[in-house]
Structure formats: structure tokens, C-alpha cells
């Protein structure tokens, strides 16, 4: 079966140890308002229009079989779009892109193998990210055995909101999990991500019990989850589990805003925590805290 990805990033040095290739899978079952990859929300392939890059040459209009129009140089008229991709091909300025493409496990393998030596020399490997890669767990269960046959380390970057038995299917192929835990308070979690954190925390507990190597990642948004209280609850929740190797604090950045606009999604702009707050919060996690 095919997997659906929206980006493959080589020389990734922020998604786990060493030099990694991060594969971003399309589709997510959370709707975090601060998401920096909003093109990952939908499972379907999408058309992105970046107004800031559009020079108004109308090359896209000439090739569109559906008669698409650029309106005021600000938005693209999407009605009737069949996602044929002709406009993106015709655009010379990177103003139109198709988010998402499908590929066979073998094809993806070929790509990630290109940097195998870099992984080995750096203690790196591949990271499955997204979106929520676990929504494509069936594809992964075909793809990952191939990766492991080649002796490559695999990290799974998940939001944790998927039934545990699906994770279990993949355990034999995973070297460690990067688990996002965004907010401890369930009401707030629902408010900002659209879902309850119940399953996420349950899964986290079980991962800890399983002894699987874990990095916890918290995107920190000023005034929402950058509180001592939230960090304290999380620290208490994690306890001193030896398999939780680090807790990484990721300050909010605005990279997602442009992408949200390109998809005509509602745009929420937030702020990163103050530097001293970051430092305070990091200290709560002791030696494991990383900024």
C-alpha cells in the first residue's frame, strides 16, 4: 500500500539525535491552533497558494482546466479544483504547491537510504513525523521492516492520540518515541487542540511502563501552556522514569502562519514564552530538560 507524505527533510538535526531524515506524513487527529505544519491536518491532498510569492503572471490560469482565477493577488479560486497539479507545475515562483503525494514503501526506502552513512556516523536515523504518522500505521508496518533490514534507527514522533494496540504493532521496529505532550489540563487541551488528552496520557503511561526509550516534547506557547503549573504536573506525571531520556521545550514559532494562510485556514498567531520563563520551566525537568 502507499503512504501519503507532504515533506521529506534531509539533514534534520532537531528531530532526535544525530543526522536524520524526517518523513512528514499527512493527516492528523489533533487541531492544535499553533500547529507549524497546518498542511498536515487533512489526509487529502491539498492545493497551497502563497500570495507573498505570487507575481501575478497568471501562468496558472492559462493551464487550469477548471478555469481557476487568482483573486486580487491574494487568494486562488479553488472551486472545481481536481488537484491535477498543472498550476503548480506552471508556477515559476513557488506560489502554488501541491501538499501531499503518495509513494510505495520501496520508493520511500530508496530516499531514506541515501543518507545511511550519515545516520551511522552520527547516531542518527529516520524520524516519522507529521501530522500524525500513526494514522498511517498500516503503511508503516510495511515500510518499517524494510528500514530495519537496513539497520537504520527509527524514531516515531507522535501526538499519542491513537489506540495503543496500533503502537504495539510497530514496537518491534521503533528505537524510540518522540511524544508530544502539550497540555496537562484536559479542558485546556480540548480547547486548544480539539481533543481530550486522556488517551495521550494513558499511552504515555504505558510507554513508560513498557520501558521504551522516549523523548517528551512540549511546544510552549506564551500564556497558554508556559506555566509552572503545567510543567510541574507533567514532571510529576513522568516521575523519574529512566526511559524518559529528555524533555525538550520547543518555543512557539510563526512558521505555520504562512502555511495556514496558503490553505485559507483560520490563522491564530501566538507568542513564544519569555527567555527567562523557558529557563525556569527547563529547570523543573532537571537534567532531562532541554531547550
Amino acid at each position: 500500500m502507499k503512504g501519503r507524505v507532504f515533506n521529506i527533510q534531509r539533514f534534520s538535526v532537531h528531530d532526535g539525535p544525530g543526522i536524520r531524515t524526517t518523513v512528514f506524513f499527512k493527516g492528523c487527529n489533533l487541531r492544535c491552533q499553533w500547529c507549524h505544519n497546518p498542511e498536515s491536518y487533512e489526509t487529502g491532498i491539498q492545493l497551497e497558494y502563497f500570495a507573498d510569492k505570487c507575481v501575478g503572471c497568471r501562468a496558472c490560469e492559462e493551464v487550469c482546466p477548471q478555469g481557476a482565477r487568482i483573486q486580487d493577488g491574494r487568494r486562488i479560486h479553488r472551486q472545481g479544483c481536481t488537484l491535477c497539479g498543472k498550476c503548480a507545475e506552471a508556477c515559476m515562483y513557488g506560489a502554488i504547491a501541491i501538499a501531499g503525494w503518495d509513494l510505495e514503501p520501496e520508493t520511500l526506502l530508496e530516499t531514506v537510504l541515501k543518507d545511511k552513512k550519515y545516520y551511522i556516523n552520527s547516531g542518527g536515523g529516520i524520524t516519522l513525523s507529521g501530522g500524525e504518522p500513526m494514522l498511517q500505521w498500516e503503511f508503516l508496518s510495511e515500510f518499517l521492516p524494510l528500514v530495519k533490514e537496513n539497520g537504520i534507527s527509527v524514531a516515531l514522533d507522535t501526538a499519542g492520540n491513537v489506540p495503543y494496540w496500533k503502537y504495539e504493532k510497530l514496537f518491534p521496529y521503533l528505537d524510540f518515541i518522540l511524544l508530544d505532550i502539550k497540555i496537562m489540563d484536559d479542558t485546556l487541551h480540548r480547547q486548544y487542540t480539539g481533543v481530550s488528552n486522556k488517551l495521550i496520557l494513558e499511552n504515555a503511561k504505558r510507554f513508560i511502563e513498557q520501558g521504551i526509550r522516549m523523548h517528551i516534547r512540549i511546544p510552549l506557547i506564551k500564556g497558554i501552556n508556559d506555566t509552572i503549573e503545567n510543567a510541574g504536573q507533567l514532571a510529576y506525571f513522568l516521575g523519574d522514569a529512566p526511559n524518559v531520556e529528555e524533555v525538550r521545550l520547543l518555543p512557539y514559532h510563526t512558521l505555520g502562519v504562512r502555511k495556514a494562510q496558503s490553505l485559507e485556514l483560520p490563522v491564530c498567531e501566538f507568542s513564544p514564552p519569555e527567555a527567562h520563563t523557558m529557563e525556569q520551566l527547563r529547570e523543573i525537568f532537571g537534567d532531562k530538560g532541554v531547550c
Partner: protein
Amino acid sequence: MVRCELKKRIEKWFDRDYRETFMERINLVMEAEQLYRHEKEGLAYGHTLAHILESISQPLEDSELLAGAVAMRIPTEEEERTIREVYKRWWDIPVEERHKKIFFYYSENWLRCRPYWFPSFGHLALDWEGLLSNGLGRMEFKARERMKDENLTEDQKGFLEGTVLCYQAISAYIERYAQTAEKKGRSGMAEDLRQIAYGEARTFAQALQLLWMIILIAQKVCGCGVLNLSRMDQYLYPFYERDLGEGRLTNEKARELIDEFFFKNNEIMVQTDHMSIETDSTDYTLEVAFDDPNYLILAGKKADGTGGVNPLTWLMVESAEELKLRNPFVVVRYYHGIPTKFWQLVCNAMRNNATIVIYNDETMLPALKHYGVEAPEVFDYGFYGCNDPNIPGDEGGLRQLWFNLVKPLELALNQGDYPMEPREKSSPRDCQFGPEDRMTGLMTGAYYGIKCKAPEEIRSMEELLEVYEEQLMYLLGEFRKGFEMDFEAEQKETKSRMRIEDCFLRGTIDNAQTWTMGGTKYHKIVAQGCGIATVINALYAIEKLVFTDKEFTLRELSDILRDNYSGNDMLALRLRKKLDKFGNDIDAVDKYAKIVTDLYVRGIEKYNGKDYLYQMWPTYSTDRDFTTMGRYVGATPDGRLAGEPISENQSPSEGSDISGITAMLNSVSKIPFDRITGGPLNLRLHPSAVQGDEGLNALCALFQTYMENGGMQLQINVVDAETLRNAQCDPEKYKTLCVRVTGYSAFFVEMGRKAQDELIARTEQMV
């Protein structure tokens, strides 16, 4: 830690005025012209050097650990005018006349301050080891002994006499410095100077002192710059080890001496960026020693096959990291099994923007052997100037060709014609390389090829590559023809015209022959292939458009190019933006890296061999001349418009590597570097990509993997575009910001605006 006194001197040095000039040298040289220009050439040279060294003052500051400096001051306007008139008289002469006085000079800048009977352009390594172990006295004795040979010609005798005068003059100068030191109460320093005035170096301090005296004189007095200091960590190690063992030296003291030595290499350079000829400082300078740095070679394999990393290697890398000056330009030679901790030290220093680059023994040794360099000296290979390979002590100065690899493709598509200036309008010529281009090695203006198949007769990629090869061979043949003509004339005109380096090379005294006459073991022309990525992209574009997709015939495409895409703007844009490019790890494109290299190497080999004294060694290097060279190439099938720059050094075309740095490195490593003898690959990394321990780990692995994959060279700038822009606005604040340009480092604020903008543009699209 750098000593406080030295830090103060460095701060002061950053604030110096670019007009400061070694006026004593200039005045004495002008006197010497009257006194000695009618003498036989060797004598005139020796007497001139003696005349200068006898009279120049010998500054010595209390905080200096090594003696050897010159007095600098700003000339009056009247003085400046006089000097410029004299320089003009020396060199503002017709090319043909100039040709009789000097054959190779790289650029006008290099020429103007050098007297015609006292020339030296450096770009080499002296036999440093021989110097330290013999000492000046024994070298003089050897030259005298050689003079007793009755079979010598008058020219040979004249040359040897000149070398004897030089040795004597230098010994006397050092002895006088000993007295200067004595008077200042520096009895230890005086003792060292007395020893090395005639004798061999016996301690670590004496070795550095002797090296420094010779560098100072060669570079600042004689103009013999851009030196390869060679493997100091190897040849100084016995001194260091002995001194430590006998309690004469500590690690701290050794480090202080190294710092002092490194700084002194900077101290004598002019405050310019020699590649930015439009800046006031470069335009003004009256000095022979520019900002072009000396190279220092560290680590690497030893002749017995073991690794060369030793405690001195560590000290020197640490010093370079802390000083962060542009000189020396440190080359660390990688080999399989290089100690991990040392590799981390090096990568960390590079990350901190020290002037350190990496070369790969695993490709360099086979490449040099391929072009005839023998063991054991091949293991001592190093570099000077713009990443040019060098066998220390066994070669004279630089002879070079910047070979524009894009040219033959343009000729191949136009039956040997040059669309920007069609042949029928030009006058016939003996050699495609005019005298000026031969002297500087740069291909400028119109070049024509041989009449070959018309585009409509070229029916496959194979046939196109054959035609490309024909044109490439023809141009290399034309270069060889011109070179041999010049070389013949040089031998006739300048038989005993010596240069200071002839006193310090292996073979010159034994053979009683200057290096220009063939006195040394090796003679090389650096044949720098330029625009490799542009050619690769262009060939792939033709394959795709003409032979795979059949969108155009080759005739149609060549007509479009001839018209510089006029009326086809969208096509040019599409080719630029949408066609796959070198640098993205795509085999279908990257395969041309090997194809083009093989053709280039085959061409080089065709015009090498026993018929010629000088052998071409191919490199991939453009320095900053990729813009100049691009000016003379019409539109290319990769969407590049006529006159636009060709690709820089080994980098992908600007902005075309979009798949991450590992993909880029994988593409470049498909070049068969075991046939290529040098040249830089510039990487620009955003500071955030390599911060912290994890970043260092990633960087170490990145570089190591590139080397394991058969990459040849790497140099980096870890700085973001914003910092560079701030430096443009507030130069005073950023005066110490040192960046790697190509084969040298520059202080960013001293670079010309154009060079600054180029660097910023290239920095903006980095990972």
C-alpha cells in the same frame, strides 16, 4: 589562552590605517635601481637585497616573543605620487615588453609594487625543514662549493653568486637583530638570533624565529607571498618534544610562541581584500605583501602510513580557533582513522568560524600520484593561495590556467563560434589564448573553437559529448601551445634571473638552476576547472529537452541560446526553476559530474607528458572569478542568461540545491576526486543548525561522511545573513568578523560591497 599583551597588539592592529606602508623598502629599492640595475642579474638581485637589509630599521616591542618586524608609516602625498610614477615606469609598458620582463603575474595588483630586476610572486613552499636543519651558514657553504664546478655556465655562476649574496645579507640582518635585542635587554632572544644567523635551529623557539625571519624577508621585502608553511606540526615536532623533555619548554610557552608566530603572519599583511579591487585600500596599497594568507598544513598521513596528529597539531588548531584571524589559512588533512577527539576539536573550531578547512588524504594522495608525484614527498603535499596543490620545497611558484569548462559547450553548440562576438567580425589569431590571458591564466574575451558538426548533425548525447570533447581538447591544446611559446621565451630572456625562493628550494643549488629554468623536481600548471555545476546542469538540460522529451531539436535550442532566450523568457525561467539540477542527489543529473571530469582529465593528460617540463594538475576552483568568466559565456541550456555568472568553485549553481545539505554533498562527492588535486567547496550553515553538543556531533559526522564518500575539501561559514547585513551597516562593530571567501579568508568589513553582497546572497538560502 592568548596572552593579554598579544591581545592588545591585535586590537591595535585592527585599527591600523590601510595607507601604512613599508616606506624604507620602497626608497631603498629605488636607490638600488640606480646602483645595481646594470649588473649581471644574480648580482643585481643579491646586491639589492643586501642594500635593503643593511639599512632597514629593526623595531622590537617589549611584548614580542619573536623578533622580526618592519617600520610602517603613512607616506606623504608627494612621496606617494613619486612612487606611483616609478611603478608606472616599471610596468606601464606594452604587453610584449612586459612579457620579456615577466611571464606570469596573476593580476596587475601583484605586479605593480615589484621591481622588474627584483621580482618574486611567491605561491610556493620553501624547504622549511632543510632550512631549520642546515641553517643559513651551511646553505651558503653549499652554494660556494657548487660554484667551484668548472663546467658551470656564466649564467649558472651568476645565479649561484646571487644566492651567496642573499644568504650573507640575511645572516647579517639577523645578526644585527641580535644586537638590537641585546640593546633592549632581551638576552635570551639575542642568543637565539645569534645561533640562527648562521647555524641550524636547536630549539623550538629558535626554529620559529628562523622561520619567521625568512618569511618576513621573503614576503615583506621580496614580495614572495602566499606561502605554504607546510606541515609545521610535523617538522617542528622533534624540536618541541626535545625541548619538553629537557625542560626548556612547557605547553603554555609553546602555545604562546605559536600565537605570536600566527599573529606575526597577519601583522605584515595589508588591510585589504585583494579580490575586491574596487575598494580604496586595495586600490591604494603600495605593498608587496597583500592580505592573501599563508597556508598551514596540519594532521594528515605520514610517509610510513601512520597518522600525523600529535600534541603540536592540537596546539595549533587551538591557537587558530582562539585567534580567528585570516592568517594562517589552516588546512587539516583528514584520513581514515583520524582520532575522533581531534576531529571534534577541528569541527568545533570550524563551527566557531576559525580559518580552518579540511582536505581529504584519501582522494588527494591518489590524485597527486596520478599526476606523477612520488613518495615520500607526496605525503607532504599542501596548498597555497587559492587552494592550489603544492609539494613543499620541490616546486617553484604558481603557473595557472582558469579553464572555463562552459566554453567548450558553447563552442560545441555553435560549430566553434562565439555568438556574443561572432568570428567573422574578429581578426585571425595565432593562439586562442592571447598574451594577457596567458600571463594571468584567466580566459577573458572571445574564444573560438574548431569547426565541428552542426547541431542538426548531432543525434545523441554521446555525439554531443564527443563534440564537447573536441572543443575542450582544442582549447587545452591552444593553451599548451601558448604556454610553451612563453616558456621558451622566458628561458631565453631570463636565464639567471633569480628570485629569493631559489635560495630555499630543493634542487636549485644542486642543479645550479633557478626554478624557472627547471631547477626543482616538479613543475606544475594549476589547471582550475571552472563552472562544473553549470556544465553538468546544461548537459542534463540538453539530454532532457532534446533527446528524451524531444521538445526541441538541438538546432532549435542552440538558436534560442544564440538569441539569449529573447522571446523565450518563460522557457529560461522554467529551465532555471523546474529542471532538476546538480546538488540534489539525483543520479540522472549527477552522472555528468563524472562524465565531465573524465573528459577534462583526458584533455589534461593529452597535453601533459614527457614532452613538457610543466605538467598540468587539474583542480575544481573558480576563486571569485566565476562572475568574470560568466561575462564571456552566452546563454546556456540550464536557463542561465548570457553574461551571468557561472557556478562557483564546486558548489551547485546558485540557489539550485534545495534538497538539504546531505543531498548536496552526495552530489558533489560523485565527482571522481581521485583525479582532482584541489579546490574549495564552500558551505554556509545557519548557526542554529549546528549549535550545542548535538550540533557538533552532527557536524563531525557530516564532514566525516563526506570524506568517506570521496569528497575532497570542505570549508564553512557559520553565520547568518542578518549578521552580515548588520556588519555592512556598522563595520566598526564587526571589524573582527572573519569569513572564508574562497581560497582565503577576509575580514568581512574590508571586502568590497559587491563581494559582501555576493556572500550575503549565498548565505540567505542556506539550511
